[in-house]
């Protein structure tokens, strides 16, 4: 039933129906804004990216052929829009990364146990406060599920740089979360 509704919605959008676009926005807008917010510094910047992304979705809706999940498809467009939004500023974030040659130990294997509920807003804030390069790579790899090779290609950096940015991002995030937990003990 849900799938049928979704396919009707997509069909309506393909026919450029105003009402269908509005429903699509109402249904997916909040989730997609949360994605944009992770990549941006502020709410208004995130809404600008959302707006840009939605316009792309509406213009490219004909190219969605029903292969794979629709939600995945629109999320990918939003992520790409967010990356493009920062692309012009990206290059210099990596110029001074001297650790390119090093191999990074994957620190992602620590077990995390929390006795308290961590506020989601706090987690978003932790990501937002990361330096731009770390933030992009962490969002893309850890949350949006892109591989290092894809990230490297999208950002125009080496795979090792992507790994080193991720390594540093994780280290900073752990520090922030640990400090937060210590404070709330």
């Amino acid at each position, binding site marked *: 039933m849900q799938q049928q509704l979704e396919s009707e919605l997509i069909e309506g959008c393909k026919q450029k129906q105003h009402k269908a676009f509005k429903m699509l926005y109402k249904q997916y807008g909040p989730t997609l804004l949360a994605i944009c917010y992770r990549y941006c510094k502020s709410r208004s910047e995130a809404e600008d990216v*959302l*707006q840009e992304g939605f316009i792309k979705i509406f213009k490219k809706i004909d190219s969605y052929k029903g292969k794979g999940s629709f939600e995945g498809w629109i999320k990918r467009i939003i992520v790409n829009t967010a990356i493009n939004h920062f692309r012009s500023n990206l290059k210099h974030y990596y110029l001074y990364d001297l650790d390119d040659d090093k191999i990074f130990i994957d620190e992602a294997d620590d077990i*995390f146990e929390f006795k308290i509920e961590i506020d989601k807003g706090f987690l978003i804030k932790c990501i937002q406060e990361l330096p731009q390069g770390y933030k992009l790579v962490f969002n893309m790899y850890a949350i949006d599920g892109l591989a290092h090779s894809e990230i490297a290609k999208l950002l125009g950096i080496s795979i090792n740089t992507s790994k080193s940015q991720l390594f540093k991002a994780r280290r900073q995030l752990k520090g922030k979360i640990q400090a937060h937990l210590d404070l709330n003990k």
Partner: protein
Amino acid sequence: MKKYKNIDELFKEELNDYSLEPSKDRWKKIESNLFNRFTKGWWIALIILLLVSIPIIFHTYYGNNIKATSNFNPVDSVITMVDSIKYDSNYIIAHQETVKLISSEPKSNNKGNEVIISENIRKNEAEIDLTFGMNIYNDNISNEYKYNNQSIEEIEYRSLYSLNNNNSNLLYEEYPNSIVNNINNKKNKLRIYTSFSGYVGVLYYQDSPDLLTWSSDFGIGYMTNKFYFETGLGYQKAKQNGELRFEYETSDSVGYYNEVISFQINPNNNNEVSYNTKIKNVYDSVIHYSLDNPIYTYDYINIPIIIGYTITRTEKVNLSIQGGLIFSFLTKTYIPVINFDVSDATLLKVTNNTYARANNYTSIHLAIRSSYKLYGSVSLLLQPEFSKSISSISKANGVRRLPYSFGVRGGILFNF
């Protein structure tokens, strides 16, 4: 207790269903971007249509009147004759007057004679309480006069009567200047005027602090009794905060170690050694980022297309509302001097995130125009204004930047 395999999983799990409600006006912005059928071509067509049609409409409606009133004579006197007055025991219920407008400046075909240029019978209905004995009848009456098959606008009329049995005596009557003005104004139904004015206002941006804007404008317009149509040329300065990002390197303390200065062996126990140490700081180059928001200034040439409607007009004061479009064309951008003053730092890179301005944009304009007649054809102008851009001021695709401004215009109007 929540358990996560690693930090990636923590963020992925927790933020997977995270959602934020977009602000209410965001959909409207997207909607206007997607469904705005007024493309550039349509706007140009609309402007051309307005420019061509408005003078034609004005000419069609008022052109004949100008011809008809070209030999209209000024009104010198007004004669009113009271024909009858009727009343019951308590109230006057009606009276009838004949009003003649007299000109002493004769038409060419009636040289030397006084002529009646208008004659009209007025039937005034009013109720006056007679219980005060000696009564004064004082009313305000609107009426319509006909002259050469054209109607002259409503005229305010006042008259005073003393009432005595079945007769009434006209004590005083007054035709305000408007009666003469209204008639004479027919000569100048379609007038041309020019204006020189200055505007000071505040530009409200959605994504950067609000800043001052000002302009100096020249306008030319056509004016009828109620409507005016105006265009012109203006020079505007607009300011906005830019965004520069500095990346710089400083030599910072990143840690310390204890350096052994000397050591001593305990003479009583050879296995015991005591060290004298000193804390040594370790310095390394550290990259920092900082932001600066210098003020950019932009010069625009503005072309307004405005239509106004006169709400009220007295001999001295004129009050109107007006609306229209302003077409702005970017002529110059002033880039501020970059000011980086962190001591002992090496500047590595400056990234300019200030968005580029579009070469032109359109705004809607709304204003209340008040003018005060100084002398002759010169009036002072005072005009609170609002304008909002309806096409983006930035070049970037997707995000539409639509600032608005509030301000006041002051200037001088010259009527021809």
